[in-house]
Structures are given as C-alpha cells and as structure tokens.
C-alpha cells in the first residue's frame, strides 16, 4: 500500500521534482562561486567526472565552497574563543583584534569534519638544541 501510494503519488511528484530540479539548477547558475569553473573542471576531469553541463560543475564548486566556508567559520570560532578565554594582565588591555588563521585552529575545526591535520610545533637544528650547556657538553 505504501509503495503503491507512493508510486501513484510519484507521478505527480515527479512533476514537482522536475520543476524543483530545474529551479534549483537555474538558481545555481545565478550564483558565481568563488572557486573558478576552470579549476573545478580541471580537477573533476582528473578524477574521471565527465559532464559537459556547466550547471553540474557549478553544483560541485558551490558544494565545495560551502564546505570550505563551514571549516573557516569553525576555525574563526576557535580563534575568537582563544582570544576571549585567557585573562591577560595589565600590559595588554585592549584585545588584539587581529584574527589570524593558524594551524591549531584549523586542525581543530577540520577534526570535526574527519580530516586529521597534524602540525609540528617547532623544528630543531640538532638533537642537542635547547638543552642546557652542561648536558650538551656530554
């Protein structure tokens, strides 16, 4: 029953779906994504995606842009949280207003999306760098 009703409704639904689809795709064409079309087409061609329709390319680029913006927004939240949290002493009364995208914030926000980004904190010249001179002589 359920299937029959849905299939009977499917006939009308399909019209709605078609119109919804065309509307959706036409709304896509109005929007110019930040990621240029040529770049997206290049990478899609590399991975085997073949479609001459520009609207699908726009769909891919819009989806990627949305994802990127979400990641960037999350990193921004982390950055603002870090700036607000520590209690600075008198020397630095006005908060530093500069928002810098750092690897720490980025790795935290990307972790929620399933991307593991590890970053080295510092690099040393030799194994004995940073040790006090007494132990270094040994």
């Amino acid at each position, binding site marked *: 029953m359920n299937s029959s009703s*849905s299939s009977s409704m*499917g006939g009308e*639904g399909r019209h709605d779906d078609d119109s*919804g*689809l065309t509307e*959706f*795709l036409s*709304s*896509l064409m*109005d*929007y*110019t*994504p*930040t*990621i*240029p079309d*040529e*770049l997206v087409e*290049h*990478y*899609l061609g*590399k*991975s*085997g*995606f*073949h*479609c*001459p329709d520009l609207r*699908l390319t726009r*769909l*891919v*680029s819009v*989806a*990627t*842009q*949305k*994802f*990127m*913006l979400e*990641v*960037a*927004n999350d*990193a*921004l939240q982390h*950055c603002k949280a870090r700036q607000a949290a520590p209690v600075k002493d008198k020397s630095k009364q006005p908060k530093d*207003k*500069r*928002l*810098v*995208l*750092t*690897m720490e*914030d*980025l790795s935290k926000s990307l972790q929620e999306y*399933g*991307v593991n*980004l590890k*970053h080295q904190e*510092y*690099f040393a010249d030799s194994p004995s760098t940073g040790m006090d001179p007494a132990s270094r002589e040994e």
Partner: protein
Amino acid sequence: MSDGRKKSGRGQQISSKKSRLSGGDDFGHAIAKIAVAQLCESAGFHYSRRSAIDALVEVAVRSICDLGKSANFYANLAGRTDCNVFDVIQGIQDLDSWRGFSGASGVHRCLVNTGVVREITQFVSTEEEIPFVQPIPRFPVSRMPKPAPSFAQAGGEPPGEHIPDWLPRLPDPHTYVHTPVWNKRDTDAKANMVELAKRRRKAERSFLSLQQRFACNSTAGFRPTKDGQVGNGNQVVNDNPFLASPLPYGEKEVCEIASPLKAYAGKSLSVLETFVPVIKAAKVGSLDFNTNERKLLHGIRPTVHFKVGTVKKSVAASLPSDTLIADKDSWFLKYNEKDDKKKRAEFIFRTVIDKPHELAQL
C-alpha cells in the same frame, strides 16, 4: 588578506618545501590558493598563516576530486559514463554522510527534496557572491602534435591500390635513402692545408713586422707597409694578392725602418698609381698582379692603409683625400673575406692604434 609571517624562517622553509613536493600541478594549486584565501577573508579572518592556507588548499582540492570520483562511481553503477545531477547529489551525500541529511534514507523520494539540495539552495540564496578575482584561462593547455598529412591531404596519389588515401603520407625518399656525399669544391686537402699554413704565416709575419715597426717608430705614427707578397706570383691560386705566398727570407732587400713622411712626400701620387691597376682590374673582375705589380713595386714600398679604426689621426691626417678614397676602394675589394687569423691580427692592430701605451701587453 595579508600573510602573517609569524613563523620562524626555518619552519616556513620546510612548509614551502613540503608544498613543492606536490608535483606538476602548481598552477592549479596557485589558483586554489587564491580562491581559498578569498573564502577565508570572507569568513572574517584578517590574516593567515601560510601553512594553514596550504593545508586548506589541499583539503579543497581533495574534496573536489573525491566528489568527482564518487559521482563518477554512481554514474558507472547506473550504467552510464556521463554524470547526472543525481550522481552529484549522491556524491555530496557520501562526503558529508557522517552528519546525515534529511531525506537521504528515503528510497522512493526524489533526491531533489533531500537536505543536500535544500542546504545548497539556502546557501546560494543567503550567501553573497564572491567572484574570483581574476579571469583564468582553461587549463591545462594541451598541445596537440601536428600529425603527418594523409595522402589525400598532401594531394598525392598513394602508390599502389592497396593503400587507402586517408593513411599518412609515405616519408620522403631523402630520409631513408643513403646517398653519397660529394665535396663541391675541386680542391684537394693537401693544397688547402698548404694554403692555410701560408695565410697563417703571412698574418703572423705582418703582425711581427708591425710590432717591430711600432717599437722603433712610435712618434711618426702608424704606417704599415705591404709585404712583398706579390713577388712570388706563380703560386697564386686565387686572385687576392694579399693571399699570395710570401717572399722567402732574404730574397728581397727590405728596409726595416721607413721614414714615412719623407717617403711619402716625394711620391704623393705613387700610391694612387700603384693602385690604379688594382682598381681597374677589380672593375674588370679579375686581379692579375703578376706582371704589372712587380714592375711598380720593385724598390718602392708604397703604404697600405688598413682601415682598422673609424677615426685614426695617424692615417687620415697626412694623406690627401683622393688617395685615401682610392685606397679605401682597393682595400674594400681586397678585404672582403677574412679568416680568423686575419681578424685576430686586425684586432691587434686596432688595439695598437688605440692604446699605444699598452703595447707591452700584446
């Protein structure tokens, strides 16, 4: 958005080396970097670390590639090679499947009503456009190698009926037929070597005499004299008198130090007379020096004026103008081909004139 270089130089160096390893896709990476930086700026960041931008670029490129792969996978699953909008939507659902989309689990519903489409529609309608800053060309630019023309294109009939005319043309016979190589000139190698040695000796001898002359005659100006090169005319193969064989040592008495002014003043027209046969013969087309020159040159050593510099006082100042012009003509006629040694000698002459004080260096 500016690039905050808060890292130590070493760290940045290593991170840039890391990005160098990505291979030949630098152009795509650079474009993606600009796009990602624009996105971060629109999100609200003022600055960014370079390594963070690189990481984001990697993530973006990887997400595009993965989306394309999964969409292609769905299309192949449905038995198609070209991708559909539904393939793309399903691909997007795959990427973000951990979060879940409403309507993704429905089997009988159209994908248009799913959360993916709704979210994207909402995104498109609310977010303002940030177009990419620069127009970029289609890349990668593929250079198609020009194929060989077919028989029909080249206009010729293929040899033999069994060869259709849309096949590429047969190569030219000169590419595969071995033909013997003949030397065009009829001279033998030995005569050439002898000639070459003579020319070399001649240049060296004139250079040596020039040095000697300049050493003992530095105040009177530079006036090189013609060696007795036309004395032995029977071995002259070509018409250039300067390339004739030099006289053996001692055959002709040669005064080493010529007082040029005195010699010249007495015979103001002798130079012209000397070169009249040269000019005449040059106009005719063949320089025949054997008989005429010998008479004139026997005892007289007329001066030969090399045009070794543009303005040289020692040469130009003391000559009347008409002889100078005549000399120039003859000089041009004789000096139309030089070998390397002559060029070197001429260069040495030039430096001698220019910097007589540096003669010791030569």
